[in-house]
Each structure stands twice: as structure tokens, then as C-alpha cells.
């Protein structure tokens, strides 16, 4: 059963449209992530679910309970029974940890004994039992974030909403917290909507990801689908690093296409389902470009040799920039290559082909998004 259903949500701020008919379905018990650059509408979507923003039109249902319907139904946030973790944590500084966590229960008139039991239980879950009597300013950032999570889980909620909860933590702690959240969520089993602009975070914690851009959902899929089969150039470019090259489809039969890539002598035969011919853009991930070393350099077809423009050592891998047909291309490898020149080949099975959409709303595909 879908736990959350958004249908045609539109929101306009002055003349700027923040959400264009956003429709999403979140399944029971999954971690569903809204991923996109800032201003893409992911937070507006989350606040619409929480009831803190009112969309202009569309409908939102939690299971079979409609909480918003074109403004005719608009359930107040306090009656939606969501648990929300804010980016700022929003822990009330005048209440102790236990009071913060107990607040939702108090509002629900839970008897004192049951309330105290539940607060203990939730604090144990987030490993903060020893800090129940502390005040927020006595806690570290990571602990505050767990208090916010405990408070969001206390009532318990029908839906857990997380707004960039890890963005204020340092890199190490952020990484640990992601793992911890994923484990915790599978224990609790609550349906979770997670908002982030960090693609690593989205890929590592989510069951499914919706990539958003300028108020539209560009693709919904598992992390692997999003990364390996991006639906369009925006998704390809935003999630992970993508080399984007100009090419021309000269033959296409519905399963494969033959491409001429600018700067590559031999045509490439790649998996592709479209039959249209003409100019396209192709995307290939840096780690998928094969570096030909030493003796086997001349073996496969469609190799090319290029001068290394720049290189960098990043600890666990090396990164080289070369040019193919004038376009800068990034290549990564775990083993250093000989300096000066690089002989590479483009693996056909890892190349994704994108036609220029005539009715495209994406005026600037390659605008820097980070």
C-alpha cells in the first residue's frame, strides 16, 4: 500500500513557480529521498507534506487519508501526525532532552507513566538515555541531531520527514550518521521522506530517490538506476560526475545505435532504444573510461591517445583531465598512469545517449549545479 501519495502538487511564489505538478508515490516503510540542487523545490515539497506550506493545487494523501486536496481539504500540521527533523534541528532550548522528546506525547495527553516509558525507549533507540536531563546547549551537534530524531519518532509518527539532517555535521560524523539512520529506520520501519542536496547521501541511505530540478521531478528510481541509467542529462550530470560529449547517431535499430563521437575516429555501437538519428549528447562516467596501458595499448578498436591537461591525486584514486574532440573529459583510476599522454577507450556498454528534447524546458543543461 502506498504510504504517501502526492498528485499534481503546484506551488507558486509570486511569479516564480516552485513546484510544477509534482506527483510522487512513496511505499510503506521505504526511505524515499528528494534530491536536487538548492531551489529545486525539494524542501517546498517536504513542507507541503508536513503541512507547513500550502500548495496552490494538487492533492496529498497519507495512505487513504487525504490531508490536502486543492485547498478544499487542508489538514493543519498538528493533525498530520508526521515526525519532522529540521535542518537546524529546532530543539527547544528551554526544555531538557526528555522534555523535548516528551512534548509530542504530552500534547497527545499520554499518561505520565506511559510517556516516561516511551521517552526512555526512544532515547535508548538513539543512544542518548544518559543525557535525558541535559539541556540542548550542553550537547554536541551530533547529539542534538539525535534528540531531534528522537522527538520526531516519539509519538510515533505515521511518516518521518527529514530536511537535510546531516548538513551541519562534519564529514566523518555525517558518514557514520547515515549508516546509523539507515539501520535505525529499518528497525523502526517508519516510512521516511528524506531531503538532501548531497548525492552521496542520497545514494547511500535511500531505497528510492526522486531527482528534482526547478520544481519538476526528473527521475524516480533506486540509487543504482539513477546512477547507471539516468533519465536525462540533468540527472546524469547532477548525480555523480559525468563527462558529456557531443555525438551523432548515424544508425539506430531500437536496441542499439551507432554513434560518431567528435574526436573519436571509429564509430561506436552502444545499447540504445530510440530510433531517431541526428545530433545527441552522450554521457560516460570517469571511472568507466578504460585506460590502455603499455603493451595492450593498440589492441582494442576505438582507442584514442590524448595529452593529459591536468592531474590530481585524491588518496584512493587518481584523476586525469584530457580532451576528446575539444571537450574536457575526466578519467579516474586507482592505478597511476604514465604521465604526459593517456590512451583511453570508451566502453560502449557504459555510454548513455540523450537526444536533444525539442520541447525541453532545460535551457541550460550544463549549468554548474554544485
Amino acid at each position, binding site marked *: 500500500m502506498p504510504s504517501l501519495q502526492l498528485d499534481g502538487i503546484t506551488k507558486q511564489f509570486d511569479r516564480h513557480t516552485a513546484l510544477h505538478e509534482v506527483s510522487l508515490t512513496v511505499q510503506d516503510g521505504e526511505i524515499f529521498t528528494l534530491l536536487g540542487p538548492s531551489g529545486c523545490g525539494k524542501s517546498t515539497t517536504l513542507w507541503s507534506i*508536513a503541512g507547513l506550506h500550502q500548495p496552490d493545487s494538487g492533492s496529498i494523501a497519507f495512505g487513504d487519508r487525504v490531508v490536502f486536496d486543492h485547498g478544499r481539504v487542508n489538514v493543519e500540521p*498538528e493533525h*498530520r501526525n508526521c515526525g519532522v527533523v529540521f*535542518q537546524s534541528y529546532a530543539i*527547544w532550548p528551554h526544555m531538557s532532552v526528555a522534555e523535548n522528546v516528551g512534548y509530542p506525547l504530552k*500534547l497527545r495527553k499520554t499518561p505520565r507513566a506511559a510517556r516516561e516509558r516511551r521517552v526512555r525507549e526512544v532515547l535508548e533507540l538513539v543512544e542518548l538515555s544518559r543525557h535525558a536531563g541535559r539541556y540542548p546547549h550542553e550537547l554536541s551537534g551530533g547529539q542534538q541531531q539525535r534528540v531531534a530524531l528522537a522527538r520526531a519518532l516519539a509519538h510515533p509518527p505515521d511518516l518521518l520527514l527529514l530536511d537535510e539532517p546531516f548538513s551541519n555535521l562534519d564529514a566523518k560524523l555525517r558518514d557514520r550518521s547515515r549508516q546509523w539512520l539507515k539501520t535505525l529506520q529499518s528497525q523502526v520501519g517508519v516510512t521516511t521522506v528524506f531531503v538532501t542536496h548531497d548525492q552521496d547521501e542520497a545514494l547511500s541511505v535511500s531505497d528510492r530517490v526522486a531527482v528534482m530540478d526547478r520544481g519538476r521531478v526528473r527521475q524516480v528510481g533506486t540509487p543504482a538506476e539513477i546512477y547507471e541509467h539516468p533519465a536525462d542529462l540533468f540527472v546524469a550530470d547532477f548525480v555523480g560526475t559525468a563527462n558529456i560529449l557531443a555525438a551523432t547517431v548515424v544508425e539506430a535499430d531500437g536496441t542499439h545505435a551507432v554513434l560518431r563521437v567528435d574526436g573519436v575516429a571509429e564509430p561506436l555501437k552502444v545499447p540504445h532504444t530510440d530510433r531517431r538519428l541526428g545530433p545527441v549528447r552522450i554521457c560516460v562516467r570517469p571511472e568507466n573510461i578504460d585506460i590502455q596501458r603499455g603493451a595492450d595499448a593498440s589492441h582494442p578498436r576505438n582507442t584514442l591517445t590524448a595529452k593529459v591537461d591536468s592531474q590530481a591525486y585524491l588518496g584512493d584514486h587518481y584523476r586525469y583531465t584530457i580532451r576528446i574532440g575539444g571537450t574536457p573529459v575526466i578519467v579516474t583510476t586507482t592505478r597511476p598512469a604514465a604521465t604526459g599522454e593517456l590512451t583511453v577507450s570508451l566502453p560502449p556498454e557504459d555510454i548513455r545517449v540523450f537526444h536533444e528534447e525539442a520541447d525541453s524546458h532545460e535551457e541550460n543543461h550544463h549549468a554548474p549545479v554544485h
Partner: protein
Amino acid sequence: MSTAPLRPPPARIPTPSPQRPRRRGISTNASHYILWAVALLVIVGSVLPVVAAALWSTPLYESGGHPTWDNFHALLTDRTWWTAVTNSVLFAALNTVGSILVGVTCALFLTRTDVPGRRVLTTLLLVPIALPGLVLIIGWAAMWTPAGFASSWLETHTVLSMPVDLYSIPGMAVVAMSVASPTVFLLCRGTLLSIDPSLEDAARTSGASPLRSLLSVSLPLMRPAITNAALLVFALSMEVLGLPLILGFSNRISLISTYLYDHWVNDAQQGLVSAGAVFLLVAVSALLVLRNRLVGDTARFTTTTGKPTGVRILQLGRARWFTAAAIALFLLVFVVVPLAGVVLAAFTSILSPFISPWSVLTFSNFSAVFENPLYTDSIINSLLIATVGGALTTLAIAVLSVIAHRSRFRFRGSLQQGMLWPRMMPALVTGMAFFWSFALLDRSGAIRAGLWGIGIAFAVRSLALGYSAFYPALAGIGADLDNAARTSGATWWTAMRTIVLRLVAPAMGASFVLLFVAMLNDAEPAVFLVTDETPVLGLTMLQLAATSIGGTVAALGVIQMVITLVVLGAGRALLGVRPRA
């Protein structure tokens, strides 16, 4: 008109009990609408009867009458009115120029140079803002008038003399400067402290001397602040009543405010006075609207402390001693001597340079105060209004502010404007507004018979002051904190009550302290509302001082001053209350 059914009086002070949201049947939105309507009716709506009274042939509390321009005609053809307007403009202009010169100079020297004793000098300079306005005027009158103690002493014992006659327009402007200069000082100091010191460093590296870089870089950057201060001082000068009443009346120098006062109290020409009030309201509002246009309304909320880190202190060398002496002399004449005058006058049976004050020390002025029921009633009434009224107004400001800033209420913007609106209103107009409102809506006179009438007028008048002390704290509380409460299951009112208002409690305390002091000392609005049963301290003193500067009024002044300083001191110690421009 008399047969029309009476509508209920405008609710006292908009103070919803925080329990209201728990009551079934009133949704959050409906409660917002009700409070909004009551607040705007009391704050803004009360002005309409003044306009009506100006355009009606008979007083509004009498039946009959018809619309007429006669009041305006009478006003505009009255030559004494135009004399009063001219005098007011002259007075305001002199006061503005003098205060800007003194205020800006003091701001530059006391915040940016190594003048010795800066802290003491700054504190002394700011004393007049904290004190009730009347106290200082009484002190000036006792010391610096031609027959005053200090001027006579100077003439008898030295070759010096007081160059300005206080019973003249320039003289009144000099007295007004002692209160207006610190206002200018505060507004300019904030700007000076927030100017990035690297701007002056850039001038230094280009070859400018320290003083030159201060004058050629920072002074021009203060221009918005100076414009702001000038317009504010000018607008406030147009409406002062106490000063011209005490100093100008005896010499028949009439300003707009005294013209209105005189015609109301002595001639009972209420239509004419209402027309004059409309004129005053339009003039003052126009000035303040102009100021908001030029400066932006938010300037009101800039902290007066700025960021003290990174302020460059200029080394003045030997000149610093001279500068300190000049400022100290100014403060001696403008602040210390007048205040000493009040205290001396209060504790002596006669204050004269020909008799040593020590030989005539007495408590009889105080016992005279405590034996006269008019004075004791005034003190008790003012304390009641300040305590109860201050508390209720603080609560009202808090509730209206959260609706104005933390809700999705449709007309919240008008509520924000509404709370600042009383700043636009000259105090006399506020008083007259409530006089006519009560006359129309409360025929029984029940509200005016008690302290509620004056209390409401004082409350509305101090609304903007309390709001400007309260708002920055409210704005500093992240919206996520109440959103978190809402998503946890709290209704809007519960979220406000349990989270937001809890967190701004210290600011509410600070707001209360400022309101207490303002309402304890306020006088002007009471001119129109006072009855024999409801004397208040400020007005009683004003009326007494207008006829004579005796020991009694000085004793009242000392009492008023002591209460004010004790409350402000406690507020500062407990809540960090600072004087505000």
C-alpha cells in the same frame, strides 16, 4: 445620535488570555481575526473621531450638529495660530540643528577617539533619555532662568553669565537640546560602530591622516543616520507640550501644542482644537513617513550597541584633554546643573543664590507632597497604570507580535504597521482621539471615570516603544522552533504559548520595564482625559510646573526620578534593558 444604541466600548486593551485557543468553537484563524479587528479599532480607529470632531459643528457628545468646514476656517484665519506654527517651526529647527551638532560631535569623539573618561561622559550624556522629561525641564527652570540659582550665582560671583534667556524660543530650544542630543547620539553611534574599519584603513593607506580619514570617510557614511535623526528630532519638537508650557507660557510664546492646550482648557473650543490636532497629525505623520522612506523602517530596530569589535580608536594627542573638558563642560551645564537644581529645590525651603542652600535644608516639600491627596493620588494612580497597564500592554504586544510575525494570518502585515502607527501620532492627538472615542462610544463615562481611559491612551502611545524592544528578540527565534512544535502536534496557539513566548520571556520583561517607565511619566495624552478622580503624576506635575517652580514640584520630580532610575536599574541588571532613542 443620542438614540443610537451604544456599541460596547473598544475592548480595554487587547489582551487575549492564552487559554483562548483551548476553548472549543474558536478556530485559530477566527481568534486572529477578532484580535486583529480589536487591535486596529483601538490603535488606528480611535483617530477617526478627531477628524469627525474637526468637521462637525457641535461637540460630538452633544446631539444635533452638521458637517462643516468652520473649524478649519476659524483655525486658518486665526493669526495667533499662524504665530504658533511659526514659533513651532522655529523652535523645531533650532533644536534640530543644535542637537545634530552636539549629538554627532559627541558620537564621533566618544566612540572613535581616545578622549579620557569616555564611559562616564557617555553615561552622563544618556541620562536625560532615561529620566522623565519634566524633571530636567524643572531643573533647567530652577537653575538657568534669568532669576535661576545658577545664572544668578554666575553673575554675582564671576564675570560669566547665562547667555540665553530660557523664556524665549532659542532658550526653549537649548533646553530641548539636552534631551534631543542623546537621541541623535544613539542613532549615530550605532552607525559609527557598524562602519567597517577597513574603509578608514583604506583611506589611511592612501595617505590620509587618522582624523582626515574619519572626517572624509566615516562622517559621510553617517549621512543617512543624521538625516534620520534630524527628521525624528524635528517631528518630535513639533509636538512637545511640557517645555513650552513651563517656559513659554509666561512670556506668551505659544507653540502649536500650547495653542491647542490653551484653547482646549481655557476656551473649550473643541472643534477648533480638533482641527488643529488634525493639522498637527498630518504634519508629524508626513515627516515620519518621509523619514521611513529615506531610512527604511527597519532602521528603527538596529541595535544601538552595534559590534564593538574592530572599532579603531583615534589618538588625539594633547587635544584629547581639551575635547574631554569641552564635552564635560557641556554636560555640566546641560545635565548635571539642572539635575542638581531639581534635587536642591526639592530639599530646600527656598532656592536662592543669596542664601546658602545648606541653611535651608528641609523635608517639608516631601511632607507637603505626602499630605496632599492630589499628589498621593497622582503617584498611586500612575504606579497603578504603569504596573497593571504596563503588564497588560506587554502581553498585548507579545500576542499581537506573534500573530503579526509568526502566523499565516492574512492581514498580519497591517498588524505590523498598526503597532508602529502610534509613533506617528503626536501625544496630544492620541489623548484627544481617546477623548472623542469615549465621548462617542461610552456615553455613561464609565471608562473615563476610572483609570482605564488614561491607561488605554498611555498604552497605545507606548505600543511602538514596547514593540521595538520586543521585536528583535522575536525575530531572533528561528521559525523552525514553532514549526517543530506544530508538526509535533501543537495547535498554533499552543506552539506560541509553550515555545515562542517562553523563549521571548526576557524580552517581554525588558519591554515591560520600558513601558512601565513610559507610562509612569507620560503626561500629554492625559490632558484631555483627566478628571478630578484620575490625576496622574506626569500631568499633575506639568500643571503645577506651568504655574510655579516651587519645591513641591521638584519634590515630585525627585520621587518620579527615583522610581524611574530604580526600575531602569533593576531592568538593566536583570534583563539588560538599554535606553532607546
